[in-house]
């Protein structure tokens, strides 16, 4: 009953044999050893397991690995390039947008698609846009600042002089 699948994880093509019941998040973490994608609630509520599947943000705890056959998967490990951090990673760093860091990979992967569809989102659009991702530390304010920072950087604008809230 096992199936052979081929996926492209962060640009690298991988062929594996998996059980159909294997979840995508387990494929990524356990078969492909990329542990930046987290398992939080395991019930598609918290968004910690968010990855990009062919460029769309999805919750990898609620998708079967076999459904990713032939598709491109991007995880947090695929954000930075040789030139440095992705604008979102820089934004999170500069704006103190994480405390424990557990939600951070999912938040950033969600924000990648959010900024791609809407390069200059309002605060309200950012809050709606990350409504499927839970953070229990920051109160979200600094995460919103981080996404605004990344948006400005990706638009090539002057970076906002933000004042992150420290608690």
């Amino acid at each position, binding site marked *: 009953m096992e199936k052979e699948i081929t996926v492209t994880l962060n640009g690298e093509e991988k062929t594996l044999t998996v059980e*159909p019941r294997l979840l995508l998040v387990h494929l990524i973490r356990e078969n492909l050893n990329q542990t930046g994608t987290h398992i939080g609630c395991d019930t598609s509520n918290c968004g910690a397991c968010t990855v990009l599947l062919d460029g769309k943000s999805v919750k990898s705890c609620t998708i079967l690995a076999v459904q990713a056959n032939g598709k491109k998967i991007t995880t947090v490990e695929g954000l930075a390039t040789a030139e440095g951090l992705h604008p979102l990673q820089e934004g999170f760093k500069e704006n103190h947008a994480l405390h424990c860091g557990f939600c951070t990979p999912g938040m950033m992967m969600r924000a990648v698609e959010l900024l791609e569809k809407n390069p200059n989102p309002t605060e309200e659009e950012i809050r709606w846009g990350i409504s499927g991702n839970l953070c229990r530390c920051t109160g979200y304010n600094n995460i919103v600042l981080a996404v605004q920072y990344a948006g400005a950087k990706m638009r090539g604008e002057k970076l906002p002089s933000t004042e992150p809230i420290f608690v």
Partner: protein
Amino acid sequence: MIPAAFDYSTPSTLNEALALLKQYGDEAKILAGGHSLIPMMKLRFASPQHLIDINNIPGLSYIKEDGGFLKIGALTREVMLEDSDLIHKKYPIFIDATKLIADPQVRNMGTIGGNIAHGDAANDHPAVMLALRAEVVITGESGARTVPIDEFFFGFYSTAVQPGEILTEIKIPIPGKGSGGAYHKLERKVGDYATAGVAVQVTMDKGSCTYIGIGLTNVNATPLRAARSEGVLKGNKITDALIEQAAQFAAEDCNPSADLRGDEEYKRAMVKVLVKRIIHKAIDRAK
């Protein structure tokens, strides 16, 4: 949580999928968006022995007006409704509903066909379909048949889709001039099921209501048409007193059950408030 073991097929045509459904019978489930089915499998509430993944079948995903109907392919993702110019311009009731369904990641996967075929009174599209008097196209080995939405929901997780059949399209009669629709659900937080939800579609002619559809979410074992409320308004000049009466009837005629979202009395009160508000919003949009 890991589902029980199952076998998995990826048919590339509808006929192939139907043949697999016939072959595996009761042991098979259709996998569309999977965001109701996979959680149930992880919790072992469902343990199908075979999954038939229809995501690779072309031609099941579209939003178009054709022959007097708005036609939506069953595999159309919620995000496609949310992003559709046609839906924004002419059918804002769907924007109201989709933006309250789960969250953006789930809407990237979840399909309108699955939302309806799941037969869950807590899902949001069924009430909208009741308000719009949609028709559901169900395809089996011997061809397609069309079922009016009022004959679609049989009971808890039970619909008119029979073994060996797949829900393939939703058809909505294009509303005439002077029409408007709106939906809202009261939810405790993003991603929650409705405490109560109300969909209203109206057609107005010089202050009189010539068409009215009212559907209720999660306040009955099945998605519920507020038939007595519709009767109060249809064919009449709309007044605040009539709207009050319609809202009162909806609160009386629903059958909510007490749960973490509230007790029965509270839910009936919320149905009354929402029916009033959403009738007003639908009439505003009909202008």
